[in-house]
């Protein structure tokens, strides 16, 4: 309880700074997002005008035509002219709203050649980005530690909005996003880019952006996609075109992480494994290994993590369990990462089996 209050006080003290600019839609950094913002403000002012008139008349009537003031009811109940007038006025208002809206719709409906195509794939519960023109691809995962979520540690400024690897994009170039999903429907939403695009399994839809200013833009998954829907943020890092070219060249030529041919020691594997477990596994199986039964079974004291059959454990993590929420991790993680996670699971939470899984063991079980 004390922790809760301390957290509360900290949040309330910290938040005015964050909140100051956070009562309205962001203007954003693309022409589309700015046009949306302009449209939004335009409609808000129209709506405020309507409400001022409507509320004005109601309040006037309530004040002036009160029985307690001795008001005597009139008896009129029809007036054709009046009724025509207030059918026509809303029609005029919606026309006034529709015309600029159509203009922005046309602007969004742009299929000119793009300088760069990014494929975005929604996964339960992470985003995968692939630079189709450069052969670069990676997953982007939440890095906020579980300790911050459950309130053991102080929350960071970008709590729940930080990832291990942001999507790096160039400014001033037309970027085309093609969006699909691996499992259920997700939605890729970055308010400052003015993009919200549903990721539908089996189907591909597209969006585009031309970012005007370098910076870091954050968003979240907007379509309920299961347990950890609230824990799959999006971070876009926009850099100058020349910096982007340098970055993508370095990223493309970086040696693929083939690290399965060396042996390592238990402390090294455990340290690596603890961090990776927090990132990939703790969302469902929890940091303490107790899981969330029955959908997400406990690993602590489970037969798989404590039995002598290490290969069974390895296969389960690599191939997943069909028809359950347990994914296959073989296509997602490299040998060393898998070895570290499995080693961690076999030694954490007083399991202490002493089993040390080597990356080469994982490689051997890959086909």
């Amino acid at each position, binding site marked *: 309880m004390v922790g809760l209050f301390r957290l509360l006080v900290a949040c309330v003290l910290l938040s005015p700074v964050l909140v100051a600019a956070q009562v309205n839609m962001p203007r954003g950094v693309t022409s589309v997002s700015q046009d949306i913002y302009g449209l939004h403000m335009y409609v808000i002012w129209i709506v405020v005008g309507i409400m001022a008139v409507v509320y004005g008349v109601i309040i006037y009537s309530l004040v002036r035509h009160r029985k307690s003031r001795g008001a005597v009811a009139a008896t009129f109940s029809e007036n054709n002219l009046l009724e025509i007038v207030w059918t026509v006025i809303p029609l005029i208002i919606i026309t006034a709203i529709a015309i600029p809206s159509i203009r922005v719709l046309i602007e969004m409906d742009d299929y000119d050649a793009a300088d760069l195509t990014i494929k975005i794939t929604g996964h339960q519960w992470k985003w995968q980005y692939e630079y189709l023109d450069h052969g670069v691809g990676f997953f982007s995962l939440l890095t906020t530690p579980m300790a911050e979520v459950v309130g053991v540690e102080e929350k960071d400024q970008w709590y729940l909005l930080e990832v291990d690897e942001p999507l790096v994009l160039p400014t001033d170039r037309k970027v085309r996003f093609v969006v699909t999903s691996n499992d259920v429907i997700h939605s890729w939403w970055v308010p400052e880019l003015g993009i919200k695009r549903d990721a539908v399994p089996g189907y591909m839809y597209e969006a585009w952006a031309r970012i005007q200013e370098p910076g870091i833009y954050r968003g979240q998954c907007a379509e309920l996609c299961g347990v950890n829907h609230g824990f799959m943020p999006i971070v876009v890092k926009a850099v100058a075109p020349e910096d982007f070219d340098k970055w993508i060249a370095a990223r493309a030529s970086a040696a693929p992480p083939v690290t399965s041919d060396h042996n390592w020691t238990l402390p090294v594997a455990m340290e690596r494994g603890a961090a990776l477990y927090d990132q990939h596994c703790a969302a469902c199986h929890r940091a303490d290994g107790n899981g969330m039964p029955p959908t997400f079974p406990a690993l602590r004291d489970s037969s798989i993590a404590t039995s002598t059959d290490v290969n069974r454990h390895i296969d389960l993590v690599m191939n997943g369990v069909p028809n359950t929420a347990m994914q296959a*991790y073989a296509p997602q993680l490299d040998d060393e990462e898998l070895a570290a996670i499995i080693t961690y699971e076999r030694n954490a939470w007083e399991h202490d089996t002493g089993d040390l899984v080597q990356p080469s063991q994982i490689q051997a079980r890959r*086909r």
Partner: protein
Amino acid sequence: MATTPDRPARRPLLIKLVAAALLMFGFSFALVPLYDLMCDALGIGKIRAAAQPVTATTIAPHTLAIEFVTTNTEQLDWSFYPLVKSMEVTTSETYMVNFIAKNNTAHTMTVQAIPSITPVQGTEYLIKTQCFCFEQQTLAPGESIKMPVVFMIDSALPEKYATLTLSYSLFELKQETASTQSRNGEVQRNRGGRT
């Protein structure tokens, strides 16, 4: 009931009720073409639309870029990729692209690739004369297969679409249903395992 209608009054009512029932029954059949109209208007059911060739036109050909993208759904441990990632094509000409699929798992699996085209408006102009997406693929562990797509873009495609992306999503078909369904030539998928 307050009133009991006498006999002659019942007949018109009966006729009306029977007529209404027939009308409703007929309407349910009329829904089939109505549904097609709605799907065309909204871009649902693109796969069927894609299989129907658009009549050849006399419009002058133009060029555009076409990209090939693949997605493995549900973390399927297969390798699945096109041999070329993108190409410049001229409309009304026929092209072939090969895709490679390899089963990396330890057991025999049956999969099917489901196509999708973005922008949606391009769907009806991309005519596939041969496509692996029409059939199921069963591969043994470690086996791989080269799968061709033969396609043509209709010249009627408006020139504002500078790039078309042809996307394939690879889905696993569960063993038992895959075999039964290949008999009646339908593609379905078992969802029962979960409940």
